[in-house]
């Protein structure tokens, strides 16, 4: 029972972790909290759905096209809306991302209607593997694998590639980065594109685990925030750890305490964490000068 709950919790947690990572990538670089993250992932997933179901595109090509769409969407938003705001306040930025969220949600609702659909995914969500008595459904197993691989690639990217290092430099000190010849504006667009791609993967996995409909990302969005807060909004490994922890804690709570109040856990974790250690588990605390 316990092991079972932990394993399935980890698989769901991996999806939360991906959303949290997508948010953290943006928050770290530009201090924008992206409330449109969920809906950006959702519209990408719907594009994948249309390609797979309506146009019968083979899966790898559909994946590539979805990524392309995710990149274009994010860069469009960054260029057309976010960059136009002249010295915006925190509230202003939040309102812009919220507005974009509503535009996307309305668009998806208009285009695809409110029906629930199933994303045709190459891995079945009925069959299961059996590891020495631990039963794990195929979809959970592959979700875990895909997320781990993606996290590892992101780690390598930020550690060893020139672009990744340039992004880290921009995070730390924008002015100094610009002096060193980094085009920070490009870096911002690129950050959004990268985050949108990670979000699209998360969206597809969540749709494959459950159903595909316009409000599907509402709950995972809150869970993503909770994971980010748990691990630290400025730390990528923190977000990954936070997601995994949240998934497991939530599942254990659902298994042993109460299933119907499972989604309260995320909020409780947010509040507790913000009261005890606002910077999160893995992020360094820093105090801003006045």
């Amino acid at each position: 029972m316990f092991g079972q709950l932990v394993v399935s919790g980890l698989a769901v947690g991996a999806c939360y972790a991906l959303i949290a990572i997508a948010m953290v990538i943006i928050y770290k670089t530009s201090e924008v909290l992206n409330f449109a993250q969920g809906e950006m992932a959702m519209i990408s997933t719907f594009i994948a759905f249309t390609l797979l179901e309506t146009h019968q595109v083979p899966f790898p090509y559909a994946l590539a096209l979805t990524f392309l769409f995710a990149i274009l969407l994010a860069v469009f938003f960054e260029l057309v809306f976010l960059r136009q705001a002249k010295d915006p306040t925190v509230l202003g930025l939040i309102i812009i991302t919220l507005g974009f969220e509503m535009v996307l949600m309305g668009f998806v609702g208009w285009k695809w209607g409110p029906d629930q659909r199933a994303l045709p995914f190459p891995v079945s969500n009925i069959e299961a593997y059996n590891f020495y008595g631990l039963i794990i459904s195929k979809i959970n197993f592959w979700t875990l694998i895909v997320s781990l691989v993606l996290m590892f690639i992101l780690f390598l990217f930020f550690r060893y590639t020139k672009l990744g290092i340039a992004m880290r430099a921009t995070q730390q000190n924008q002015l100094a980065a610009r002096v060193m010849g980094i085009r920070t504006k490009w870096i911002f667009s690129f950050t959004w594109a990268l985050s949108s791609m990670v979000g699209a993967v998360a969206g597809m996995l969540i749709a494959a685990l459950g159903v595909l409909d316009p409000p599907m990302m509402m709950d995972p969005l809150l869970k993503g925030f909770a994971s980010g807060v748990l691990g630290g909004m400025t730390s990528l490994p923190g977000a990954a750890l936070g997601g995994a922890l949240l998934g497991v804690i939530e599942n254990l709570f659902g298994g042993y305490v109460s299933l119907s109040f499972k989604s309260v856990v995320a909020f409780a974790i947010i509040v507790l964490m913000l009261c005890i250690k606002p910077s999160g588990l893995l992020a360094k605390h820093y105090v801003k000068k006045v």
Partner: protein
Amino acid sequence: MDIKRNYYEDIELFKSNTILVWSILFLIFLAILPLFIQKYHPLGLSLYIVNLITVHAIVAIGLNILVGFTGQISMGHAGFFALGAFTTVILILRWSFPLWIALPIAGFVSSAFGFILGLPALRLKGPYLAIATLGFGMTITTIIKHMEFFGGRMGLQAPKLELFGTPMKDIHYYYVIMIIAVLMTIGAVKLIKTRVGRAFIAIRDSDIAAEAMGVNLTYYKTLAFAVSAFYAGIGGGLYAFILGFINPESFHLIMSITFLAMVVVGGLGSVMGPICGATLMTFLDIKLQAIQDISLIGPALVTFSQKYMSIAGISNIAVIVYGLIMILIVLFEPLGIFGFWIRTKRYWKTWPF
């Protein structure tokens, strides 16, 4: 031009006789409005829509005390709204309280929760506060949904109220709601002009400076949350009777965002702004929900939807327009409708220069 000579001039409700006269005219207009609307239905308005606008205006004024004056962000006002609605209905249904007692109790229950939410908010700023309040709003509706006491998933039927032995109709609700709304507007205007309001504004501009000046941050920040939640609670209680039926599904995240949008579109840091914002956004929402009925644009959009989009989701155009308005307001007129009004006024004052 208008120099304040003593403290009492600063805190008085009407700055000049012109404003006093216009306010009285506006109140008379509000008093005869329902008769006019019932007879002619201008712009397709009905008393139901006007009532809805008024309730939204109450919530928006309250939210603006928090967002516009104190500088804290709340994305969980649908939670307070739901608390107010459910408390009122349950008090009247289960224990048959009269409305005039149940409503203030609902307000205070809601403000108690606001106070509790305000406590962690003391340590949080900007984005983190947004996350915490977002979580609060979503959690409250989840809890309500899973408790049988609140009617569970099915929701509750608001009881029929009686006034002097006759059942209340829309027009009676209109006067009740409007009187409460006017009182609460005056309350908000007064609050901002007093010591408390000035403390709020000081916290918004710089909380560290405010603390150094002797403003008790703990007290005033939680107070701002409590006051704001009180307005939302009262609004929620009235909302239950306009709709006649409440279920937890309707108090979702989009509702919180809508309230925030009303405040931002109307104008942060003013009392009249949110009222304008609530009027505009509610009216637009109602009109756009039934966009296919609008002449000229409607049929064109229906054919367009049939060809490229889905006809079932045509009401989602309202959400798109909402989102676009929010973005454009922040980009081009950060002070909202109120900022536009101030600019127009200034232009005519100094005309022709």
